[in-house]
C-alpha cells in the first residue's frame, strides 16, 4: 500500500462502521500533534458530542439541557481509511468503548 | 422550527379563508384613494402658505394620478354592486379633475384658483371616508 491523499473536509461527517457493520458514529474532529516538521494525526473523534466540543459551546446549556456524551475516541491505527467514503474500524465498537480513557 | 412553520401556515390558511364580499374587496383595493385626496388637500394648503415648493405639488399630483388610474381600473373590473361602483367611479373622476385643477393653479402661481380645488378635494375625501365606513370589514 502506498501513500494516498484524503481531504479532511470530506472526511468530516462520514459515518464510521465497525467490522461487523455496526455504526460507531460520525467523524467530527481529528486530533493531531506537531512533531518536528510534521503534523501527525493521533486520533479521530466520533459522535455528536464531538460536534458540540468543536463548536465550543454548550448548545445544551442554551436550551437548558445538561451536557452529557463524551466523544468516542479512535486511535489513528484503529481506523481504516482504505475507502475514504466508507471508513471502517479495525476493532469492534465494544472494544473501543472499553479502551476509552477514564 | 417545524412547529413554528406549521402554526404560521395554519394562521395564513385561517385568515385567507375569511370571506370578503365583492364590495369589501373593492373598497380594500381602492383604499389608496382617500389618503391621496387628503394628502393633496394638505399639499395644496401648505403651498398656499409657502410651506412646500410648487414642484412638490406637481410631483404629488402626478403620483396621486397614478393611484387614481389604478383605482379606476379596479372599479371597472369589480363584481361589486353597481351603485357602489358608480359612486366610487364618480369620486375617482372627481379626484382626477380636482387634482389636475390644483396642479394648474400651482403652475400658474395662482393662489386664489387653488382654493376651490383644495375645497373640492376636501369634500371628495369626506365623501370617500363615509363610503368606505359603510362597507368596512367588521373587525374581530
Amino acid at each position: 500500500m502506498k501513500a494516498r491523499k484524503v481531504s479532511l473536509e470530506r472526511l468530516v461527517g462520514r459515518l464510521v462502521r465497525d467490522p461487523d457493520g455496526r455504526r460507531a458514529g460520525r467523524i467530527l474532529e481529528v486530533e493531531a500533534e506537531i512533531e518536528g516538521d510534521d503534523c501527525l494525526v493521533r486520533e479521530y473523534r466520533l459522535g455528536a458530542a464531538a460536534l458540540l466540543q468543536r463548536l465550543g459551546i454548550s448548545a445544551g446549556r442554551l436550551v437548558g439541557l445538561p451536557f452529557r456524551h463524551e466523544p468516542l475516541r479512535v486511535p489513528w491505527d484503529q481506523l481504516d481509511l482504505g475507502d475514504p467514503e466508507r471508513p471502517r474500524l479495525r476493532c469492534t465498537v465494544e472494544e473501543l468503548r472499553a479502551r476509552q480513557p477514564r | 422550527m417545524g412547529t413554528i412553520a406549521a402554526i404560521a401556515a395554519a394562521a395564513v390558511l385561517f385568515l385567507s379563508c375569511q370571506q370578503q364580499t365583492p364590495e369589501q374587496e373593492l373598497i380594500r383595493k381602492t383604499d389608496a384613494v382617500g389618503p391621496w385626496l387628503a394628502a393633496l388637500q394638505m399639499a395644496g394648503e401648505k403651498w398656499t402658505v409657502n410651506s412646500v415648493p410648487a414642484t412638490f405639488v406637481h410631483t404629488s399630483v402626478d403620483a396621486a394620478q397614478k393611484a387614481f388610474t389604478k383605482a379606476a381600473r379596479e372599479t371597472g373590473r369589480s363584481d361589486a354592486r353597481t351603485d357602489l361602483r358608480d359612486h366610487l367611479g364618480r369620486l375617482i373622476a372627481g379626484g382626477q379633475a380636482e387634482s389636475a385643477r390644483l396642479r394648474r393653479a400651482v403652475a400658474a402661481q395662482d393662489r386664489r384658483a387653488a382654493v376651490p380645488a383644495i375645497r373640492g378635494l376636501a369634500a371628495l375625501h369626506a365623501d370617500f371616508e363615509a363610503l368606505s365606513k359603510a362597507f368596512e370589514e367588521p373587525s374581530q
Partner: protein
Amino acid sequence: MELVRDVLDKQLIDREGTKMGRADGVVLEIRPDGPPRVDSLTLGFTVLASRLHPRFGDWFARVRARWSVRKSGRYRVPWSVVEEVRQHDIQLAVRALDTPAFDWERWLRRHVIEHLPGASK
C-alpha cells in the same frame, strides 16, 4: 491540536501580515507505515464548492476553467511553509503577492484599481 477546530477555515496570514485567504481545505496523507500526516492546506473557490457537494465542485471547476484569470482553481500550501498555528490565525512563511492565492487581487489591482482616480488615500 484539533484539525477541524484549529486549522480548517482559519485565517491565513502571510509574511508581511497580509490576510491571504482561509484554510478552505486540509489534505491528509495516509501512509502505510505510520500515522497520517497533514500534507497541505488548500485554498480557493473550487475547494469551497466541493465542500458543499463534490459534484458541485467538479461543475464549478469546469466553469471556472473557462473564465478565471487564475491558472489553477486551488492553491496548495505545503505544510512545510506553515510557521505557526495561533489562536486566531495561521502564520505562513510566504509572500501573498507571489502566490496564486493573490491572482485575482493582482489582476484587479493591475487592470481596474490602477485606472481609477484616487486609489491611494
